[in-house]
C-alpha cells in the first residue's frame, strides 16, 4: 500500500502497562483510530484528529495524544501545514477542507483592548446587591418616541414600535443547521435558549418537528439553498434571517457533504439521500441591494412583518454593505468575522478571506451613525467570541448583541479539533451517525450550556459594575470605556479607541 507522504498530525499512544483492554477507546472513537487485535488495542494514528474523546473515556488514563514529533525540518517560512497540504493535494488533487474558525496566527484585537473601571472619582456598582440590566431588544428602533398621559394619569407610549426580539442577555446562538450539526446538538441549543431567554438559529437546514416546542426561542434562516423553507417554517420563529455570507467562508457557498445527509436530513432539506447539499455561493435572486430589499420584503409580506436579519461575512467594504442592508429594510445586521466557525470550508478560504470582527463592528457602527440610521437596525456581532470579555468589548465597539457557536459547542464536548466536515465527530455534535449522536444527551448537555450562559451573565454584570454602569445599554458603542494596548495609530483610529494611558 502506498503510504501517504503527508505525515499524521498526531500520535495516539496507549500505555500498555495501564491498559486493561476494556475497548472503550474503540467504541468511542468516531474516526476508527482503534481496533481490536485479538490481544491488544491496535492504533491507526493517521486517522487521529485529537478530539480527545478516547482520552476522556479511558478509565485508566492510559491514552495520550501527542503532536507528531516527526516534523519536517524546522522552517519559519514553510510551515508544517504548508508542506503537508501540498502533499495532500498532490495525492488527491482536491481542496483541503477544514472545520471551526481560523486557527492561524493573525493579530487578535480583542486581546489588545482593555476595559475601563471606576476608581475613587466615580463609584463602581456591586452587581450582587444592585439591579443590573442585560435585557436586550433586537430590531428597528424609532428615531423618537411620543409619550402621552392617559386619563388615568398613566404614561402611554404613542409611537407604534417595530417588532423586537426580546433577549434576557445580549448573547444569542449562531446559526447551525440540522445536517451540519446533529439534532441533539440543536436540541441542546434550543433548550438552553428557552431557559436563558435568548434565541437559537436553525441555519439553513429546515426546522425539525422536535424543535417546535421551542419556537419562541428560534430564529429561522433562509439561504441560497432554500432548504426546508416553507410558509410554516418562515412563520415558526421570532424572526427570519437571510444568510448572504459566513465569516469562515466569505463569498463561497455551503456544501454539506453527502456523508452527512442520511434520510432525516434529506427529508427536511427535500433532496436525495447521500447527495451533497449545495448552497450556491450567491443567492441568484440577489445581485444588488435592491434585490436584497425585494427578498426582505417578500419575507415580510409572507410573515406579517416579522423582523428580518441579514447575515454577512465581515469583508473589506463591510461598512458600505451594511449601510445598504439597513436601507434595504433589514431589522438586524448580523456581522460574522473571519474567525467564525464552520462545519466545512476550504482552509484556503477560511484562513485568507475576510476581516476580523472587531474592525467590522467599529466600521459598521461608525458608518450607520454618520448616516443617521444606526437606530434603523441592531448589530449582532459574531465570529470568535470566546468569553464574556470578548462580548463586552464587541458591545462597547458598537454591537447590540453577540452570537456564539464554538463556545456553545465546547460545552457539549467539542475540543475544536476542526474535523467537523468528516461527519465523524466523536462527541456527537457535527455528525449524523446515530451511534455517535446518541451520545449527546440533550438534557445533560443543555444544563452545561445553561451554566455557561449563567456564568457569562454574572461576568458581564461584574464588568458593568466595575464600569459603574447598571445597564448593558450604557455600554453599547461606548468606546470611551475601551483602551488599546500595542495597537498602531491607524488601528486605534478605525476602532475609535484611545491608547492605554490616554
Amino acid at each position, binding site marked *: 500500500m502506498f503510504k501517504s507522504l503527508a505525515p499524521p498530525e498526531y500520535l495516539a499512544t496507549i500505555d500498555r502497562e495501564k491498559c486493561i483492554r476494556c475497548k472503550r477507546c474503540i467504541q468511542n472513537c468516531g474516526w476508527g483510530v482503534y481496533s481490536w487485535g485479538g490481544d491488544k488495542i491496535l492504533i491507526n494514528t493517521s486517522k487521529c484528529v485529537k478530539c480527545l474523546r478516547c482520552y476522556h473515556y479511558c478509565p485508566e488514563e492510559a491514552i495520550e495524544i501527542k503532536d507528531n514529533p516527526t516534523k519536517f525540518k524546522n522552517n519559519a517560512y514553510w510551515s508544517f501545514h504548508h508542506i503537508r497540504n501540498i502533499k495532500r493535494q498532490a495525492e488527491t488533487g482536491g*481542496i*483541503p477542507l477544514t472545520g471551526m474558525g481560523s486557527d492561524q496566527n493573525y493579530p487578535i484585537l480583542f486581546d489588545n483592548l482593555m476595559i475601563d473601571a471606576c476608581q475613587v472619582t466615580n463609584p463602581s456598582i456591586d452587581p450582587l446587591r444592585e439591579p443590573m440590566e442585560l435585557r436586550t431588544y433586537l430590531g428597528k428602533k424609532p428615531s423618537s418616541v411620543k409619550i402621552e398621559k392617559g386619563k388615568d394619569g398613566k404614561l402611554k407610549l404613542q409611537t407604534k414600535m417595530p417588532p423586537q426580539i426580546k433577549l434576557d442577555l445580549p448573547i444569542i446562538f449562531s446559526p447551525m443547521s440540522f445536517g451540519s450539526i446533529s439534532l441533539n446538538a440543536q436540541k441542546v441549543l434550543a433548550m438552553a435558549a428557552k431557559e436563558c431567554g435568548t434565541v437559537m438559529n436553525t441555519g439553513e437546514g429546515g426546522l425539525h418537528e422536535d424543535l417546535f416546542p421551542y419556537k419562541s426561542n428560534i430564529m429561522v434562516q433562509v439561504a441560497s439553498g*432554500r432548504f426546508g*423553507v416553507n410558509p410554516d417554517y*418562515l412563520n415558526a420563529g421570532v424572526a427570519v434571517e437571510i444568510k448572504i455570507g459566513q465569516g469562515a467562508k466569505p463569498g463561497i457557498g455551503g456544501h454539506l457533504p453527502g456523508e452527512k445527509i442520511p434520510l432525516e436530513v434529506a427529508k427536511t*432539506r*427535500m*433532496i436525495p439521500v447521500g*447527495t451533497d447539499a449545495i448552497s450556491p455561493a450567491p443567492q441568484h435572486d440577489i445581485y444588488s441591494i435592491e434585490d436584497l430589499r425585494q427578498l426582505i420584503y417578500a419575507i415580510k409580506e*409572507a410573515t406579517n412583518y416579522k423582523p428580518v436579519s441579514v447575515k454577512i461575512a465581515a469583508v473589506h467594504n463591510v461598512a458600505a454593505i451594511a449601510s445598504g442592508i439597513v436601507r434595504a429594510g433589514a431589522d438586524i445586521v448580523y456581522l460574522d468575522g473571519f474567525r467564525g466557525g464552520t462545519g466545512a470550508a476550504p482552509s484556503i478560504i477560511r484562513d485568507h478571506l475576510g476581516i476580523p470582527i472587531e474592525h467590522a463592528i467599529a466600521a459598521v457602527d461608525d458608518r450607520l451613525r454618520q448616516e443617521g440610521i444606526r437606530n434603523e437596525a441592531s448589530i449582532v456581532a459574531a465570529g470568535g467570541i470566546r468569553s464574556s470579555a470578548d462580548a463586552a468589548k464587541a458591545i462597547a465597539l458598537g454591537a447590540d448583541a453577540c452570537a456564539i457557536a464554538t463556545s456553545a459547542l465546547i460545552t457539549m464536548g467539542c475540543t475544536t479539533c476542526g474535523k467537523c466536515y468528516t461527519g465523524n465527530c466523536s462527541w456527537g455534535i457535527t455528525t449524523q451517525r446515530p451511534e455517535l449522536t446518541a451520545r449527546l444527551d440533550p438534557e445533560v448537555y443543555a444544563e452545561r450550556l445553561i451554566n455557561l450562559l449563567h456564568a457569562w451573565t454574572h461576568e458581564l454584570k461584574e464588568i458593568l459594575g466595575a464600569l459603574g454602569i447598571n445597564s448593558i445599554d450604557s455600554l453599547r458603542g461606548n468606546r470611551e470605556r475601551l483602551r488599546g494596548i500595542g495597537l498602531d495609530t491607524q488601528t486605534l483610529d478605525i476602532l475609535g479607541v484611545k491608547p492605554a494611558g490616554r
Partner: protein
Amino acid sequence: MFEIDAKGSYYRDLNNKVRDAISKGEKEITLKNINGQYYIGDGLREKVSIIIEGVPGNDLAAFMDGPTIRIKSNAQDNIGNTMNSGKVIIEGNAGDVLGYGMRGGKLHVRGDVGYRVGIHMKGDKKQAPTIVVGGTAGDFFGEYMAGGLLILLGLDENDPRPIVGDYLGTGMHGGMIFIRGEVDEKLCGAEVGIMDPDADDLKVLKAALTDYCNDLGLNLDEIMKKSFKKLIPVSLRPYGNLYAY
C-alpha cells in the same frame, strides 16, 4: 367573483385587501389594473383563485402555498420563489429566476422565460414542483436542480433562437428535465446526461402536459408530435471529488 381595482395601489395595501377578501371567504378574486405591484400572493395558504389583469411585478407567489394565480399577460422576475404548493399560470412571457428553490406546485408559462429558471428546485416522494415553459429559456435553466420536473417546449417553430441557453442543468443532482426536440450537448453542464425518455418517463411527461394544455388551451397531441429528450444528473454527488479529506 370578487374584484379589486389595483389602479395606483401600493403593494402592501393591495395585499392587505387580498388577504381581507380571503378571510371573508372569497374564493375567486380578480385584480384589475395591476401595474408592476410586487409580492402578489406571497405566503398565501388558502386554496383560492386569483386572476390578474395587467403586468404584475417581481416576486409574485413567493413562498405561496395553495392558491392558483392566472396572469393574463406577461409577468416579471422571481415568480414562485420557494413556492410550496398551488399554481401560477402565465399567459404571456416571464422574466428571470422563476421558481427558485421551488418545493411544490406548478408554474405554467405560455411564452418565453429568462435566465436561471427553475434553479435549485427540490422535491421528494410526497411533493415535487413542476415548471412548464411553452417558449424558450435563457442560460442556467435548471441549475443545481435537486428534484422536481422542468419541461421546455419551444412551441414557436418560427422562432430562430435556440430553445435553451448555455449551462443547462449545471450542478444538477436530482430531478428531471424534458426538452422538446434535440439538445445540443455543448449547452449542458458536465453533471447532466441526455437520454431518450422511456415509457414511464412519457407517462410523467404526458400527465404534466395534459394539465398544462388544459390551462392554456393547447393541443397535447400537437405538442407530442415532436420527440423529447430527457436530462438527468449523472451523479448524486457532482462535486464529490473536489475535496481532500
